């Protein structure tokens, strides 16, 4: 992983923690309604008039097309599913917008879908509200929308309604996306955190920290090498567990704050402790490398396509078997177990037999990670 170019200087012109340079010479005052910047989003695109309609029809509807959306009414009208529903909402402000393995659009769809999957629901419908910054190249927006369409198809959801707003240049960092999602609860929905008890086992569906490591590497000006975000819908994994006829105690996805924060929250909720074994944690060498270089801990790095399950010990073989039959779950493994409340919510046994405690992450290790 290189950090310098030939002259020994740090590579410049890549991602920084301060706002990316979008200097195109224009000011907000110069780009009023009426100007038609070819290929760029203007304030007129958010005015609700002709340009908005063209954008919605020509871009969003073209890629998201489905009967409910195509009617373009103020609300999508849908047949309500039988039984209980899961309903979630999410916001996406990731910087940079594009990264190896995904972009803000794929994060938006997968993040929302995954919140439904871990609730024990079959994801059905999403909404997507876009907050676009004046000056955003329409080509970039189209890439994001295409990415969303692809992930929606892979997850089996339809994006049935949305909104578009445009803010003055300098008042929004390219694109922000807000979503909501609805799903139908299936019979094998998780029991809930109150049911978590000593003896239960903790599984993850694959290596942790990939997404966080990629973003951290880009922000630090490092070449991510082959590392890509793990951004993916968990629908196939959720379905596999349901089909195995197993009701897990809890399903979660470790996004902001990583696996450690998630397990600390679960442990505090259930008034137990969770013991992890360092030697059993699946972490890619490239992720460890990024962490060592930047002083990060893989247990606090977000994943965007991993499933964490807490199950009764008797069920672990059935769950692991079900997960491992799916490509995304091939590396599913047990990483720890639930024990009586100890000195901290999460206790990691280091490979030397020492101990390290984890609690919810105090400060933002990596702002604008998803």
């Amino acid at each position, binding site marked *: 992983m290189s950090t310098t170019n030939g002259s020994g200087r740090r590579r*410049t012109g890549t991602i920084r923690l301060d706002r990316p340079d979008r200097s195109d010479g224009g000011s907000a005052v110069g780009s009023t309604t009426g100007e038609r910047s070819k290929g760029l989003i203007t304030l007129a695109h958010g005015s609700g008039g002709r340009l908005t309609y063209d954008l919605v029809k020509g871009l969003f509807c073209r890629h998201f097309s489905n009967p409910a959306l195509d009617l373009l009414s103020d609300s999508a009208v849908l047949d309500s599913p039988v039984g209980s529903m899961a309903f979630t909402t999410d916001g996406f402000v990731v910087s940079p917008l594009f990264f190896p393995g995904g972009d803000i659009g794929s994060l938006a769809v997968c993040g929302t879908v995954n919140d439904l999957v871990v609730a024990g629901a079959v994801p059905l419908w999403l909404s997507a509200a876009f907050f676009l910054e004046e000056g955003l190249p329409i080509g970039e927006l189209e890439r994001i929308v295409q990415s969303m369409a692809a992930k929606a198809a892979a997850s089996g959801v339809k994006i049935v309604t949305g909104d578009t707003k445009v803010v003055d240049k300098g008042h929004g960092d390219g694109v922000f996306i807000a979503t909501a999602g609805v799903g139908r609860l299936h019979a094998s929905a998780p029991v809930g955190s109150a049911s978590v008890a000593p003896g239960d086992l903790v599984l993850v569906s694959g290596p942790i920290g990939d997404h966080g490591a990629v973003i951290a590497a880009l922000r630090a000006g490092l070449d991510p090498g082959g590392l890509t975000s793990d951004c993916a819908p968990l629908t196939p994994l959720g379905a596999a567990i349901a089909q195995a006829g197993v009701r897990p105690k809890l399903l979660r996805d470790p996004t902001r704050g990583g696996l450690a924060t998630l397990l600390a929250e679960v442990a505090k909720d259930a008034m137990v402790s969770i013991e992890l074994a360092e030697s059993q944690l699946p972490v890619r060498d490239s992720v460890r490398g990024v962490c060592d270089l930047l002083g990060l801990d893989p247990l606090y790095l977000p994943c965007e396509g991993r499933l964490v399950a807490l199950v009764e010990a008797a069920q672990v073989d059935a769950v692991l078997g079900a997960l491992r039959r799916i490509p995304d779950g091939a590396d599913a493994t047990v990483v720890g177990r639930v024990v009586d409340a100890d000195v901290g919510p999460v206790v990691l046994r280091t490979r*030397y037999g*020492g101990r*390290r405690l984890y609690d919810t992450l*105090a400060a933002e290790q990596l702002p604008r990670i998803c």
Partner: protein
Amino acid sequence: MSQPQVDDAAVGRFREAGRVERLVGDIARLDPPRPMRFMHVCGTHENAICQFGLRDLLPPWLRLVAGPGCPVCVCPAAEIDMAVRVASSSGAIVTTFGDVVRVPARISLSDCKAQGGDCRVVYGIADAVEIARREPNREVVFFAVGFETTACTVAAALLDGVPANFSILSSHRLVPPALAALCSQTAAGELDGFLLPGHVTTIIGLEPYEKLVEESRLPMVVAGFEPVDVLLAIRRLAKLTIEEHPALENAYGRCVRASGNLAARKALAEVFEPSNANWRGIGAIASSGMRLRESYASHDAARRLGIEPDGSIADIHPGCRCGEVLLGRVEPEECPLFGRKCIPEAPIGPCMVAFEGTCHARMRHAGRRFESIRVDSIRVEE
């Protein structure tokens, strides 16, 4: 400045469980005449010790204490306040390391940022210089906190040439004067030896420590940062103490040369000169700071912007024992605020703010010693 070539296989060897086990066994089998207390003065050492759970592996007669090794923790509130004033009222862009922005003074740089001050987190001075080049109409100030290792990067940048709108607010500190102060303030028998900081010593070499060993009659061993490195140095310190042999040794030979890094030392000497400096919670230590030389006055933010530290700002909150923690006199667990009112999410003292601060590192690791201290000796003052 060349980087040591450390390949993955080498790092792996120094984390190998088998080697760690053997060293732990060696240390446990030593026959000490009395309990021993060693101090390290490096936040990265404390971080490594906590990360690998090394205190759990040491015998009960051997205590490893953290000294003032975190440059963020020892940065006086008055100097943080200077950076805050620059960010909030001068219109300049203040750039600094992530940990520094959360350290409280009157307010922290993070609070200042939320109130509209332009403060940006960077990974190193190169990022700050880049910002200055991109925004030639703004003053860009790099708030430079760190020991000799970090100061080298600042010196290198200035020698390379920086834009006219770029300046340094220096809060750099030197390690050997702090060690000297610790040695002179420590009563006989309180400390049995020092683990010396591997990265700082890569720069300064062994010579600055020679007089200290002679005068204090304490053994000192330079240590690296992998588990095997730390345990090797501890084993050596323990043996030297049992033999009553005050020696200065280098247990980090793959990175540290006795002469240090001559090019880096030359760069430091050209750009900086020693100055008297305060250490938060400890007080003034002569010649322990680094000030930009007169020839670099145009890039010295304090001189450029005409700001001076406000001595009236309190370094330590009432009830906070950071000063004693920094001197290794008390363990974090003995501070009544530790883990109760003072937590990483809402830190009261500097040791809890910085990631490598002793209290923050200890929150991430609380083995059997935490339990015994918590039960026996903490008085809860609400």
